[in-house]
């Protein structure tokens, strides 16, 4: 008998706090939406508080936790220092909390919150970059992890500059830096990371093989070019044509990406529509909706279109891709920790038995309806419709919170 390496599956104790904290920030973030009106502007401080609470506390928290498991899977090497992740989530949680207070109550707190977030992300990046050095098989996903890490570094730097601007009065053009910061983080990090991971995870869970990967390669390079071009154009002040050209490249990238997803979907051997598959359908449907709204916005420049496009990207695409994968990742980690030692000795559960099917179903129905109705509320500037959507999402968020606890406590 030889020892089993844990290189490819880190301990549950390291990762579980990310999912617990992430689901807490998710639910509280949606509740926070109740206090927003559907006619807010994209640089409203309340909105910025909510966006940071949601994106850092939920989206980044879950992505970092998931990366603790997925980095070895996609890079085919073990982590440089998996225990570093024990430091990532506390800094991120406290930093996000302080940033929320900074935006809402006391701007002086903002740089301190921002600093803690930088520390957290720097630790995460340190492990990622050091792990990259040991990679032998340079796949497209490895390239996306490398490039997205660079964009994340630029994103946190630009974010900290703005935190100093708001909290300490540093003289910078906030509107310019806000756009660059949002593009680096949302386009350069979150979207590129999702692109890179999905080319591994969707075929893995759907058992798709032998498909053409040309579209995802084009999508990756176009997104990296578009994000860089947009930021440079904004920085140099060549806003009009530079922004239009860069956004067109980004839209083209999203188009290629969606085409790749369709190719993977068509070639899958596993056709069951479980909670993961449904979440993927909704997430990619939301991305397609956001793409259409974004393209129209470039032509007619409407704040409502911009907000609705952002809504479908963040609440539809990012959120459903993340929550859908939680039903794969958490059962696996729990199974690996508690049941894998029992294989061959006694009957062990299958992974699909290790999530609460009804709660997951309720989460999907309430949350997806909420996103659609809330999105229409934003688009039409109808506050009642928007709040109706939020109400449904709160119920869905509660179900998700329950599901995460249920999965983590499965015995």
């Amino acid at each position: 008998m030889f020892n089993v390496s844990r290189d490819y599956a880190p301990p549950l104790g390291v990762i579980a706090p990310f999912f617990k904290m992430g689901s807490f920030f998710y639910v509280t973030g949606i509740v926070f939406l109740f206090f927003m009106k559907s006619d807010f502007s994209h640089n409203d401080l309340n909105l910025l508080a909510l966006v940071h609470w949601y994106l850092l506390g939920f989206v980044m928290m879950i992505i970092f936790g998931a990366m603790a498991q997925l980095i070895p899977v996609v890079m085919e090497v073990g982590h440089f220092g998996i225990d570093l992740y024990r430091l990532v989530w506390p800094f991120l949680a406290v930093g996000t909390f302080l940033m929320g207070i900074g935006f809402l109550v006391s701007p002086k707190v903002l740089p301190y919150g921002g600093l803690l977030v930088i520390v957290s992300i720097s630790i995460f990046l340190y492990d990622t970059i050091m792990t990259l050095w040991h990679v032998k098989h340079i796949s497209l996903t490895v390239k996306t992890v490398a490039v997205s890490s660079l964009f994340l570094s630029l994103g946190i730097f630009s974010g900290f500059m703005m935190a100093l601007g708001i909290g300490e009065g540093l003289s910078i053009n906030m509107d310019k830096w806000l756009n660059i910061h949002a593009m680096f983080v949302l386009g350069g990090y979150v979207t590129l990371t999702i692109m890179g991971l999905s080319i591994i995870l969707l075929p893995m869970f759907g058992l798709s093989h032998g498909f053409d990967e040309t579209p995802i390669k084009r999508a990756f390079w176009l997104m990296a070019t578009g994000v860089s071009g947009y930021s440079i154009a904004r920085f140099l002040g060549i806003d009009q044509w530079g922004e239009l050209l860069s956004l067109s490249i980004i839209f083209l990238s999203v188009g290629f990406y969606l085409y790749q997803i369709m190719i993977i979907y068509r070639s899958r051997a596993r056709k069951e529509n479980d909670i993961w598959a449904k979440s993927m359908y909704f997430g990619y449907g939301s991305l397609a909706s956001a793409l259409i709204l974004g393209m129209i916005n470039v032509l007619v420049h409407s704040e409502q279109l911009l907000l609705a496009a952002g809504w479908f990207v963040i609440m539809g695409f990012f959120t459903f891709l993340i929550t859908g994968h939680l039903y794969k990742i958490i059962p696996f980690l729990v199974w690996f920790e508690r049941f894998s030692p029992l294989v061959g000795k006694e009957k062990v559960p299958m992974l699909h038995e290790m999530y609460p099917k009804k709660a997951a179903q309720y989460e999907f129905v309430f949350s997806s309806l909420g996103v659609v109705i809330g999105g229409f509320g934003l688009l039409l500037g109808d506050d009642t419709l928007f709040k109706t959507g939020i109400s449904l999402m709160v119920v869905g968020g509660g179900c998700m919170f329950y599901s995460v606890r249920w999965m983590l406590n499965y015995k």
Partner: protein
Amino acid sequence: MCTITKDQVYKAISTVVDPEVGFNLVEMGLIYDAIIEESCNVKVVMTLSTRGCPLHQMIKQWVHEAVERIEGVGVVEVEVVWEPAWNISMADDNVKAALGGSGTMW
């Protein structure tokens, strides 16, 4: 003279189930060969449904242990290869049919 047969080795490995899909490795078509030497040393050549599978080492160990349980077996070696790459056509018909699902959303 070794009396262990390939069938015995495949039968032993068929007790190893992939927890994600719920089928054993043999019916999934993941076992490419079982080479049995005269000294009863056994080398299993297999693949996984995806590179970088988080259960990579563990599945290797399960196969190793399953083959070790065969009476009279010598040294067991498990080699994971990526060529030819696995695809669904290598799986048994019951696996293909079950994975095809009902296709309905609800």
